[in-house]
């Protein structure tokens, strides 16, 4: 039995479901997800249609003006809850899991975090409108949408950065906040390997001034305040940009097209879809596609599917807690109603949805997730999942979730377990199930 269908479902997708088993034609199944229209989806609970960015910012404003009694969930947090549940419901049930993996990958590459309360209502919109529509387009388009979104401007403090020599800067004495400028260069595009200096960071931060968030007056949202924009040309790594809002997009496009950015993106994609330490030839090949297509993320996604290195068992990538929980629940056939359970389970394993601990996003190597108590917690939580799906036939689940990827030892342990629940726990706690 070929393992290609399972590899497609595990490595590229989110794990098989009873109603979405491993495909017969693995590559065609993946490519169809890239070519098809995006999946339609119900709006979050209690919303008739998807909340807009203006809705989110209005809730934030309301929370600031009318504080709720202690112990009550703020309006922003309530929207966050509805958003993540709707997102989890999609992950649990989607028929286009490769596409969802790409959405999560790029959202993690351009990470924002809901760890601070003003961020709570913004992250759902960020993923829906800044990330999701652009994961198969030019990287520059994705980068601009992400950097200009109020979630990113708030998270990395761009909203408080003021050009020191701008009208507002001279009047208020306020100055630059380099946070966003530095992270764009370091994390989102070039990386320090490109050899930029502190001077380049400062210049790029000066270039970004004026970009801020309007939180009080309609229309709410991202807005360019010229009075805060630093006058004069800015020189980033030798490239000169004139003053004005247009230079922000121009600089982001220039960074997106830089060879160092392509290498960086290629390495991260290879690490996610091939191995923690991917072969340099794979990175070169992906970087080449980005270079030749002007950073086309759809083209590089197709190239991932074509990589022989992405298809060789045994699968080596350790599932993050998030991936593990989603895959386990999909294997059990969980429906959208399991969304809150999924969220609390992965939170218990150290990964809270949309809330990485740093702008670098969640780590994508095994070492970051493997530690003794964490590993036992994984087993405990997998046992909790098997307790919730006691009537799920373990033998069926084994064939669905691992099939030919199951080692003889795992297969025998599952088939000879003393009870169906024990068999399910052994399946979900097997070394193969920890991988994708």
């Amino acid at each position, binding site marked *: 039995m070929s393992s290609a269908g399972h590899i497609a479902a595990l490595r590229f997708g989110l794990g098989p479901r009873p109603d979405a088993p491993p495909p017969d034609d693995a590559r065609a199944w993946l490519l169809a997800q890239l070519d098809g229209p995006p999946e339609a989806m119900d709006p979050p609970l209690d919303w008739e249609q998807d909340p807009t960015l203006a809705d989110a910012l209005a809730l934030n404003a309301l929370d600031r003006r009318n504080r709720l009694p202690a112990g009550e969930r703020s309006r922003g947090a309530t929207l966050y809850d509805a958003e993540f549940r709707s997102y989890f419901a999609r992950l649990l049930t989607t028929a286009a899991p490769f596409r969802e993996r790409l959405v999560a990958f790029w959202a993690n590459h351009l990470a924002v975090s809901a760890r601070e309360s003003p961020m709570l209502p913004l992250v759902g919109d960020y993923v829906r409108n800044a990330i999701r529509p652009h994961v198969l387009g030019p990287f520059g388009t994705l980068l601009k949408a992400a950097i200009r979104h109020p979630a990113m401007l708030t998270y990395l403090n761009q909203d408080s950065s003021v050009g020191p020599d701008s009208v507002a800067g001279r009047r208020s004495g306020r100055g630059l906040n380099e946070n966003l400028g530095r992270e764009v260069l370091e994390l989102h595009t070039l990386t320090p390997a490109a050899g930029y200096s502190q001077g380049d960071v400062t210049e790029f931060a000066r270039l970004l001034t004026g970009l801020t968030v309007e939180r009080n007056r309609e229309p709410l949202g991202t807005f360019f305040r010229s009075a805060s924009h630093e006058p004069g040309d800015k020189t980033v790594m030798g490239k000169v940009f004139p003053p004005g809002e247009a230079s922000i997009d121009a600089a982001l496009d220039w960074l997106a097209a830089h060879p160092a950015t392509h290498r960086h993106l290629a390495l991260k994609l290879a690490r996610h879809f091939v191995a923690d330490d991917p072969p340099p030839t794979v990175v070169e090949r992906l970087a080449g596609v980005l270079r030749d297509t002007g950073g086309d993320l759809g083209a590089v996604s197709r190239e991932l599917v074509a990589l022989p290195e992405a298809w060789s068992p045994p699968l080596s990538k*350790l599932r993050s807690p998030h991936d593990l929980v989603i895959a386990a629940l999909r294997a059990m056939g969980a429906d959208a109603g399991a969304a809150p359970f999924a969220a609390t389970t992965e939170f218990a394993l150290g990964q809270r949805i949309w809330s990485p601990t740093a702008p670098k996003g969640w780590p994508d190597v*095994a070492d970051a997730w*493997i*530690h*003794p*108590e*964490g*590993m*036992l917690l994984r*087993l*405990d939580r997998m*046992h*909790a999942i098997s*307790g*919730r799906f*006691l*009537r799920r036939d373990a033998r069926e689940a084994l064939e669905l979730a691992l099939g030919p990827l199951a*080692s003889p*030892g*795992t297969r025998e*342990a599952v088939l*000879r*377990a*003393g*009870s*169906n*629940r*024990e068999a399910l*726990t*052994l399946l979900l*706690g*097997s*070394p193969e199930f*920890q991988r994708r």
Partner: protein
Amino acid sequence: MTRHLPPLGRRGLLLGLSAGAVLGGARLALGAGPSGDPRLVVVLLRGALDGLAAVQPYGDPALAGLRGPLALAQPGEEEGLLDLGGFFGLHPRLPKLHAMYAANEAIALHAACGPTRSRSHFVAQDMLEIGAEQRLASGWLNRALAGLPGHEEGANRAAFAIGTDLPLIMRGAEPVGMYAPSRSDRPPPDLYAKLMEINHADPLTGPAIQEGLRARGFTAGVLPPDEQRGGFVELAGAAGRLMAAPGGPRVAALEMTGWDTHAGQNGRLRVVLAQLDNGLDALREHLGPAWARTAVLVMTEFGRTARVNGNGGTDHGTGSAAFLLGGAVAGGRVVADWPGLAEGRLYEKRDLMPTLDLRAVAKALLRNHLGLSPAAVAAAFPGSAAIGEKSGLLRA
């Protein structure tokens, strides 16, 4: 066939920890003199208890040859069997059960088996709980509830199951309450050991699990003593408390895993048998005066091979041991039509030959302990007219 959850079972009427919650539901149901109502507890040992280890026929001449290193020390020796009258001995980790035996409150049943001869856990457990040789959508204990005296007045509130899921034996048309432990539901020690086993060769997960288990106080897959107090012991004690209340539930089902001892059986059994022993004692203790009117049936889906295997364990077999205990039981005896362990006497030349159908025991409990009519007993165990009630198990 598929196993649909009965709607009421799925809703699982959750009983609180306090007996008060149960009282609230049951006070009208049982009417006057409820403390006199009989109590029935069924304990399912999932994974196949090795009956030859739990109740060892040390007097059988073939035993030592079959069991080799798994044979236990003779009664009177250090860590020796607890004698049950000269031929059988109780495993040394069952001292409290032995004390009940000595007080004429426990019967050891031997060479017993459920309705099937399957060596599949799944099939055999299902049939043991269904109580028939073919699949039905409900369990025999649930069907029995319909025949409980006082059923029309609402005595169907009389049953509950303990654990995270309603076992098949309790599934069916009759509503059954559930008591679920609130604390986190960790794998039992035996399952951790199996998880370690399938992960040990993995360079990432193997060392992490090994170190994690060590940090949590496991040594060689065995839980530290205070952890042993949890799990089944706690649940059995809770069941006793719930059932002790006047008008409390009359019928309960509990389950315990960890019996599938394919390797290193002696070490593993010591842990689970001690838990079982402590749990049954906690049940007795918490039932208080109601113990006098209680019968507890402890049974497993099948036994294990008569011979030790290559890993110091035993594989799936057929006949096993079971226990019947409680103040209502005419105890102090081993009840067995002993087939013997000689080569020619083994079932398919490998397992203890079953000579007692557990349905005969269950029927006796329904008829003579709970007071079901013959028709109601027949409805609980359809298609088994040839299997009569086992007589003499209960006090007159």
